């Protein structure tokens, strides 16, 4: 299999789907002439023309709402937010219009659209530009939320998200765009709402998604050198959450750590922790541990920033804790 970057994987998914279906268009800031703020849409303007790859002014509420409106009458918009921090300006369009249209219309309308872009902390961008917002979107009935952790997953899941008839929040990461990984040649999709086991193991279950998958696989390598075999489980889609494989894994390992770079309060991590505690209660040999961002706005200072996020050390400590080691 060829190795490509996360960025290239997304670009391929966009291009392949746009080739397949002319109801798809991309709108967002700097997506066309500039070739994408993070170069994810590179070459798409040249290939598909300015009617389908559209530069928008800095008006997230406006162009996200235009996307919802276009989707209501049969187009399949892909709205790129330069980062999900800016989606907060469009949150009314996403929560009140995209997510609820089908419900409010009694099933008369659907909103087949993807809102995608980078999410989560990058490097020293401080509080407004460095936050993982998936829990906010995952809270909302009517939305689907996808957070891929590898180039292969990103491509396969994005193609499914574009073909999905519901509004899908698709969250990437600035610091993952250069991440390389093997991606199958030719056409493939990965279904939404299916959890994937990224590494088999028998001693402990570590749940992670998005950027945290790489960190947790690294931690699993360290644990293996200590004779601990971690099973790494990646839900990939946070809503709807396929908790079956997570619960099955915990029933086997009896121990669970959930890793997320979002805040801990009322979060995807706490939801997974609750479901494991509830559905695998009799199998647990230790309380579920969460490794999340610290419950603070992101500081600019590099050392503070590093320590505000999940680290290899924090993941290893949590694993040791549920195994009652040290």
């Amino acid at each position, binding site marked *: 299999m060829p190795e490509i970057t996360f960025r290239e994987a997304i670009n391929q998914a966009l291009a392949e789907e746009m080739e397949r279906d002319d109801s798809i*268009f991309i709108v967002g800031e700097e997506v066309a002439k500039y070739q994408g703020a993070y170069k994810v849409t590179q070459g798409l303007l040249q290939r598909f023309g300015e*009617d389908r790859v*559209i530069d*928008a*002014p800095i*008006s997230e*509420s*406006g*162009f*996200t*709402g*235009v*996307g*919802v*409106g*276009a*989707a*209501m*009458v*049969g*187009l399949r*918009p892909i709205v790129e937010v330069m980062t999900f921090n800016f989606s907060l300006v469009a949150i*009314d*369009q996403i929560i*009140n*219009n995209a997510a609820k*249209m*089908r*419900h*409010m*219309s*009694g*099933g*008369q*309308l*659907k909103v*087949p659209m993807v809102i995608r872009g980078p999410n989560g902390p990058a490097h020293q961008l401080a509080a407004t530009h460095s936050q993982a917002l998936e829990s906010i979107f995952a809270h909302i*009935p*009517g939305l*689907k939320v996808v957070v891929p952790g590898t180039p292969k997953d990103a491509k396969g899941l994005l193609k499914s998200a574009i073909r*999905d*008839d*519901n509004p899908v929040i698709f969250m990437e990461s600035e610091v993952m765009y250069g991440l390389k990984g093997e991606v199958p040649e030719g056409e493939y999709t990965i279904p939404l709402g299916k959890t994937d086991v990224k590494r088999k193991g028998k001693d402990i279950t570590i749940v992670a998604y998005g950027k945290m998958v790489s960190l947790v696989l690294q931690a699993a390598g360290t644990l293996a050198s200590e004779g601990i075999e971690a099973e790494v489980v990646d839900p990939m889609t946070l809503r709807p959450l396929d908790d079956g494989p997570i619960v099955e894994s915990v029933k086997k390992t009896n121990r669970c750590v959930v890793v997320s770079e979002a805040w801990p309060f009322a979060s995807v991590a706490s939801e997974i922790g609750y479901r494991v505690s509830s559905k695998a209660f009799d199998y647990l040999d230790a309380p579920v541990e969460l490794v999340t961002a610290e419950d603070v706005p992101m500081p600019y200072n590099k050392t503070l920033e590093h320590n505000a996020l999940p680290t290899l050390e924090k993941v290893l400590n949590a694993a040791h804790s549920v195994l009652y080691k040290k």
Partner: protein
Amino acid sequence: MSDYAIETNKSDGFLKEEYLSLGRARLVEMYRTMVLIRRFEEAAAKAYSMQKIGGFLHLYIGQEAVAVGAVAALRDDDYLITAYRDHGHAIARGTDPKKLMAELFGKYTGSSKGKGGSMHFFDAQRNMLGGHAIVGAQVPLGTGIAFKAKYRKEDRVCLTFLGDAAMNQGAFHEALNLAALWKLPVVYIVENNMYGMGTAVDRASAVTELHKRGCAYGIEGMVADGMNVFAVYDAVKEAARKARELSLPTLLEVRTYRYRGHSMSDPDSIYRTKQEVEEEKQRDPIEQMKKFLLGGKIATQKEIDTVEEDVKKIVAECVEFAEKSPEPPLESMYDDIYV
């Protein structure tokens, strides 16, 4: 008038010969629809007072000429989207009023199966795309619907209704900029009923001639008398033509008045006088239309009376249908959230 505003309607145009070209049947039908909207809402208000309708109920009474005149100027395949004061628009578009009354009653036979209520009337089949309850949030949606028409090279337009207060929302301004920038076939029709809830236009908008507020985006403004169904018809016809033929947006302000409070719980004596309301009622759109039909010998008094009787019967049937309709089954709670 500003450079961007053109005067399209003069009251002396009310009896223009060309309206007769709409045809007698069509003219009587427009009158009938206005009466239906009013009687439908009077029945809704009564049902609300009997607690058969819950939540918010925003009545359109006084503004009937706007929805009816505007819809008459559209083609059936044109799109329409509106805000939460949406009863008149759905009825004008031809939605079965039984389904609408059932929706107000929260019944399973309602247009949204009891999930939407008063503020969320939808009729996708008739291109009536809601019923949207966050002030101004439907303006980008209407713009996106027009975007689709242009993307698919269809000569359809999207008529996007909003209230005067929605013009102060950011979503409105973002949408207008995009519509002008991308030359979209959209008509923004501002129903200026003089108040956003209890706040008069001159206490909310720095510029009170609302049609002028499109000038920042190079969008032509128009103003029309919203109590005169033909004035609305003329203005929307012209704005829709520009959208259809030139793919240009228009900001059309129609000056109208709501007789009732903002919602059923609105003690409107706090912010406006009884005298003001009574004076506005002298311009009543239904009475004006009736005079036109009788004065122009388009309809006889007997026909006018028949309209009233027919509508009375229809509304009674709507209420009966709504009352007798089943509650939504509990398991329907999880329906229609995802496709």
